[in-house]
């Protein structure tokens, strides 16, 4: 059973008309708000471990959005790689650097102000551009894109890039070892 179908079933339960699109919008809004809140926490909390945990929420939210967009394979990968591997890596990093759990980091106010201005500026420009350009585009997602389509694309059209990424991963692996080893 595809996740999207489950979603449809859920929405049927919620609304008597069983309108998939309304349900999608509702889910989007809920997840988006959660993500934004969690993201804000990630960048504002003073506890590193908390930040990592908030990050998990954002990543999970992103996975949910992928499902809404009909891209199940990406969603699954997101959960596996990000939540499964990357966040764990972060937690290890926190432990190894002994940024003692719950340690307050005092951020210079000057920097926050500067960063906030840059962020807001960036967002406003992007928002204007996006609203201006994609006002009319609607997404109609009835069924997920199958994994086989994605795999076809990866192993035909993007085979070279795929190989390059694998080399990159290998190189990163070796690089990380070289950089981090103790001698």
């Amino acid at each position, binding site marked *: 059973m595809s996740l999207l179908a489950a979603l449809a079933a859920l929405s049927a339960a919620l609304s008597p008309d069983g309108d998939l699109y309304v349900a999608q919008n509702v889910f989007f809004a809920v997840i988006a708000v959660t993500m934004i809140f969690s993201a804000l926490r990630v960048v504002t909390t003073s506890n590193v471990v908390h930040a990592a945990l908030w990050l998990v929420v954002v990543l999970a939210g992103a996975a949910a959005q992928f499902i809404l967009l009909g891209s199940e394979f990406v969603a699954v990968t997101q959960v596996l790689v990000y939540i499964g591997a990357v966040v764990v890596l972060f937690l290890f990093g926190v432990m190894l650097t002994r940024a003692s759990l719950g340690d307050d980091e005092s951020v210079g106010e000057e920097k926050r102000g500067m960063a906030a201005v840059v962020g807001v500026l*960036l967002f406003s420009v992007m928002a204007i551009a996006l609203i201006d350009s994609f006002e009319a585009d609607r997404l109609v997602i009835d069924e997920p894109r199958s994994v086989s389509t994605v795999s076809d694309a990866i192993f035909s059209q993007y085979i070279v890039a795929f190989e390059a990424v694998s080399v990159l991963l290998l190189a990163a692996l070796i690089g990380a070892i070289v950089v981090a080893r103790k001698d």
Partner: protein
Amino acid sequence: MSFLVALAESDSVPTGSTVTDSANWFLEYAWLVPLLPALSFVGILFFGKRMRYKGAELGIAAVALSFLLAVCAGFAWLAHHDDGGYVAVQKSTQWLQSGSVEFGAGILVDGLSVMMLLVVTIVSLLVHVYSTDYVGDDKRYTHFFAFLSLFTAAMLFFVLSDNILQMLVGWELVGVCSFVLIGHWWEEKPNSDAALKAFLTNRVGDVGLIIGTIALFFAAGGGRTFDTVKINEAIVGGDVSQAALVVASVCLMAAVMSKSGQFILHTWLPDAMAGPTPVSALIHAATMVVAGVFMIARLYPVFFEGMQIGGSSINLMATIGAITLVFGGLLAFVQDDIKKVLAYSTVSQLGYMVMALGVGAWTAAVFHLFTHAFFKANLFLGSGSVAHAVHSFDMKKDMGGMRKFMPKTYVTFIIGSLALAGLFPLAGFWSKDEILVGTGGWGLFGDTGGNGAYTFHLLMGMFGAALTAAYMTRCVYLTFHGEYRGGHDHAHDEHGHEAHGDPHESGPRILVPLYILSGLAIVAGFANLPGGFQLVPDSWTERFGHYVEPVGSSYFPKIAHATPSWSLAVVASVVALGGAVVAAYYYFVKVDRLSKETEASLTGLPDGLSKSNRLAGAGHRVLVNKYYLDHFYERVIVAFTKGPLARAAYWVNQNVIDRTVDKAGETAVLAGRHVYDIVDQSVIDGFVDGSGRVSDATGEELRHINSGKVQNYAAILFAMAAVLAGAFLIIFAL
């Protein structure tokens, strides 16, 4: 002998045109004349030190060969002219092409350029020979000869040019060679200062030359040509607007003023005496300074029309010349340095030439150029000979009575002086007389004709003649008569020698050039005996003008020719003689007696009335200070440009433009902070802190951007990206 065969060849002259491209071999191949010294320059530069006579032999050989070629070209021109009239030979090839316009390079051989070839090569040859002795033990002997060759080559290149672009090249090359040669002894600051001054003053004039050249390029006839003949023809044909000609002639006049040392831009010329004497002879007699005069002569239609010479009684060029000739002559009076006397005399004589061209007496001007080259070179080399003996140029301190020690030099110097003073029958007399006639201002016993009635200029010329005779008398007296005042404690002279014993006569390599030049100073005048006096057969008169002046050629304006006048000749001679006699009386009688009575050194003696008369004293002071022009140039213009102006510009650079940029960067970084502070209600704190930062930053620019913190860089990066994207949006919205 191939050249004899070539001489015998007759020239084919197409009818109806006054320019041909096929002629006698020596005329067609006249470009060899500048090429030889140029090659010798390269040769001496690279191999000179290894040669037996350290490169001098190569230079002399090349210039001698050039001289021979020039002589042959001279004969060929005579034959060419006799055969077909005044038909210039032009050989041209493409030099470069830009904007679909071809720029040629070539030679224009006519009477004027052939005459210049002769003058330049012979003076240069003699100077070369003279130099082997004069700078014989100089440590940069080879180098000296190399640049002497290049100097000669540049001048020859200049006079042969068939287009003004090429003339510009030659003109500047001459300038740079003079820079090198004047600064030959660059160890001493005054010498390098003089070299710099010469070059920079010329450069100022070059602004005029560049603009004038460009104006002519676009203005003349079909447009877009530098070809001298085409430009001149267009002007003669009336195809060029008067406005363009006025602009061009005034601009070119500025160039002439700097190069030919006309009043207010002449100050570099006496300073240029810092160079070795042979160089001074070459610069002031035959080459550099007459370049300006030559250019006027070459582009005469431009000036004739632009300055409206015909039918007038005053114009810019003639007036500048007249002022120069008088003021230069006055300055020559107060100099103690023999070379400076001659330098100011050159200024004055150049004034004559420019004035002559300004009043329309073309032939007279060019003829004066011709004769002046010989007697002035003679005088310079003579002064060098004396200075060589006493190791000084100071007439009052270190000379006097030299005729006893150096009788041969004395004789040649006297001949040169008389020729310069314009006394009959030496060269200067004939040429100066023609100039005075040419002013057309003489109406005493019948009108002499000419291009206008330049009476004022005639009077100035007369006065100048008297002055010339007088200051040369003073110079001769101070140098050669009276008691020998030298031999006391000597400073090092330009060679770094100590003087020892009495001065003695110079050697043959110095004397022979002097003999030749003084011989020429005697006979050169006969090249252009005035016609109409019935003293000599008509076929002997006005030979120079006949062969040199492009009368009837398509690139020369229709100018009127003055008729010689007995009365004027006599009056002018009397005036000159009068100047000489007054000066002779003062110096040879009064001063001589005074100095013998008081046994006072001449250093303390007054020149003329300056001690007894306040006004005259003030005049003397003005003259000694060279009309304060140098003060003006150095203290005011140069000092201002180098000092406050340059510093101000630099200050603006560092403190306004740079600071603006730094501040912009700073502001970009600080913007966030300030906004935050204001939002955070700590306006006062923020203000104080911020102003502290600003004042810190004045000492250390870009400090905040440059703090080396990664995140600041990243902030700038993102902020700039946002701003750019915004700009992009705005462009799209338009």
